[in-house]
């Protein structure tokens, strides 16, 4: 780490790592509990894998927790616990960057959820332009005309190749199924 770098991002990263390990441990624990409901022949191999994995996860969790109490490295600027405590109020460039990363993470999650919802509701070929146009507009800063043109070309090419030529049976959207049922 370069001299003068605040400690706060490392603490934040440790929090994320700890949370991730906890989630994986919860998942493994769920699988072990599920395993115990199986017959003996079926649960043998999974248990032999899951129990050591759970043990390793607990070791990893311990390592993550202990790393939060590690002595912070000397960053040349006399960084110590006080500096990490003050880092938020300092609002240094590293802290803003982390906020920016979190904000971008939330945005991409939103875009992916939008795509999922549109595909489920409207079907793939309707969902594509409804996803691509706002994305290009918001994230790429393209004009409406350019965004619509780009999305139209993309969905047109995909439809010709996959919908017509290869004839892939894409799942229908929920709206289509409801409309068909009503008819």
């Amino acid at each position, binding site marked *: 780490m370069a001299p003068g770098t605040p400690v706060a991002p490392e603490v934040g*990263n440790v929090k*994320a*790592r700890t949370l*991730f390990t906890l989630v*994986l441990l919860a*998942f*493994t624990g769920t*699988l072990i509990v*599920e*395993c115990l409901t*199986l*017959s003996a*022949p*079926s649960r043998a*191999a*999974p248990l032999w*894998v*899951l129990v*050591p*994995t759970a043990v*390793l*996860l607990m*070791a*990893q969790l311990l*390592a993550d927790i202990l790393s939060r109490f590690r002595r912070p490295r000397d960053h040349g600027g006399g960084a110590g616990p006080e500096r990490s405590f003050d880092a938020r109020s300092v609002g240094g460039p590293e802290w803003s960057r982390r906020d*920016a*990363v979190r904000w*971008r*993470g939330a*945005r*991409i*999650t939103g*875009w*992916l959820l939008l*795509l*999922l919802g549109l*595909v*489920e509701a409207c079907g*793939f070929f309707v969902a*594509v332009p409804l*996803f*691509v146009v706002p*994305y*290009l507009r918001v*994230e*790429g*800063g*393209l004009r409406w005309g350019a965004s619509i043109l*780009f999305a139209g070309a*993309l969905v047109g090419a*995909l439809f010709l*190749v*996959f919908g017509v030529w*290869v004839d*892939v*049976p*894409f*799942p229908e959207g929920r709206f289509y199924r409801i409309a068909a049922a009503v008819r």
Partner: protein
Amino acid sequence: MLDAALEGLGIVLSWPNVLYPVVGTLFAMVFAFLPGISGVTLMALAIPWTYAWDPMATVLLFGALVGGSTFMGSVTAILFNIPGTSPNAATMLDGHPMARRGEARTAIACSATASALGSTVGVVMLIALLPVVRWVVLAVGPPELLLLAIWGLSTVALVSRRAVLEGLIAAGLGLAVGFVGLDPRTAESRFTFGIEYLQDGVPIVPVFLGLFALAEMIDLFVSGRKTVSEADARAAMGGSTVEGILTVARNPGLFLRSSVLGSLIGMIPGIGGTVASFVAYGHAVQSDPQGRFGEGDVRGVLAPEAANDAKDGGSLLPVLAFGIPGSEGTVLLLAALTLHGIHPGPELVSDQLPLVFALIWSLFLSNWLTSAIGLFSSGQFARFTLVPAHLLVPVITVLVALAALAYRATFGDLLLTVGFGVFGYAMKALGWPRVSFVIALVLASLFETNLQLTLGLHRAGRLDLLARPVFLVLLGMLVVTVGWSTWHQGRRWHRRSGT
């Protein structure tokens, strides 16, 4: 045999027969470049188109389709971290980091060269083993397959050098995910939680798409990078086609071992190219524990690509000799041959050898043609790494969604892809190795099925491991490679700790 080989070559190179492998190769390349569809899709489409064709023309076309799609899948794997086919997933592990460093041209050139030469080794082994094919296929049983799976799993700690604990955990989770579905022995549902979608297990294609392709797009968005390549425009066009070609010449041992591995694994029905490429990748890591695998080591492209193409030749052996298909591609090949009155089996190999060699030469020609086109176009392909992120992210995301939906036409696959995309991004951001998870997932079924069969044979008193030469050879290789790489790691640790 030589007369039949020459006659077959003459058939392939004669006019107008030569058009079939050439046109078939070009179509296979286009299809393989588009994620979600592959040479297998094209083969399925081609069956009805070729109903009225001459049988020889069909043989030549399908030989080219089998071989033509393998290389192009590695181009998308290198450029965008999207494997064109599952076997190309191993190429991504080092190919994409090379592209991000501005060495896409080197990676693609190495892939093209290894593909062409690897397919040559596969074809040579196919021809050499044709007379003894029965012994080869019957000599491989559950104990040998179990050892192969263990060998692949033994590389997990090596590929996750800087995060061994995380790597072992990821491998455990990969195996656990691989156990989802029906128990191979008792047919009991495991870890499905009542969800019908999971009854057939977790499909591997959406996992790959999410864990690597979608995760990379998420990372590209979150990081705020302007392009895939982290190098500037001029550096992104760096790398060298010649350097890529010379990589194969500089690593002859690794290339030959990977090709032989791929060809042998391809001969075993049901194993598939994915296992071949990952086992070869793991072997490459074991052969040099101090290498920078996973960070853009060109040998991490060479090994899986050589194995992947050598596997094509090997996979023809059980198809032609026994009529037993070993993969989706060979199933369709078998269907096409049967529809035209060509019945694979011992009679085909003994009475229609020129036809067999025509198929083999068509495959060979197709592999070299795709590699030649790839070599000449490597620079143009590298330009894709400079496409602006705000255009690339939505397009690739849509293509990933398309590939997930096209796989089995179920919304569940798309959900799975997005779920693994988020999981893959979290692993990447927190320094957990995804490759360990994927190796374990790919090998889980092979490992468990053959473990149960081997234990069953042992309990029934029908297993004499000392009387199985292939088992003993594989065991020796496993002990040598694991021991050697462990010794190397220990030496490295001692050097670091100053003792």
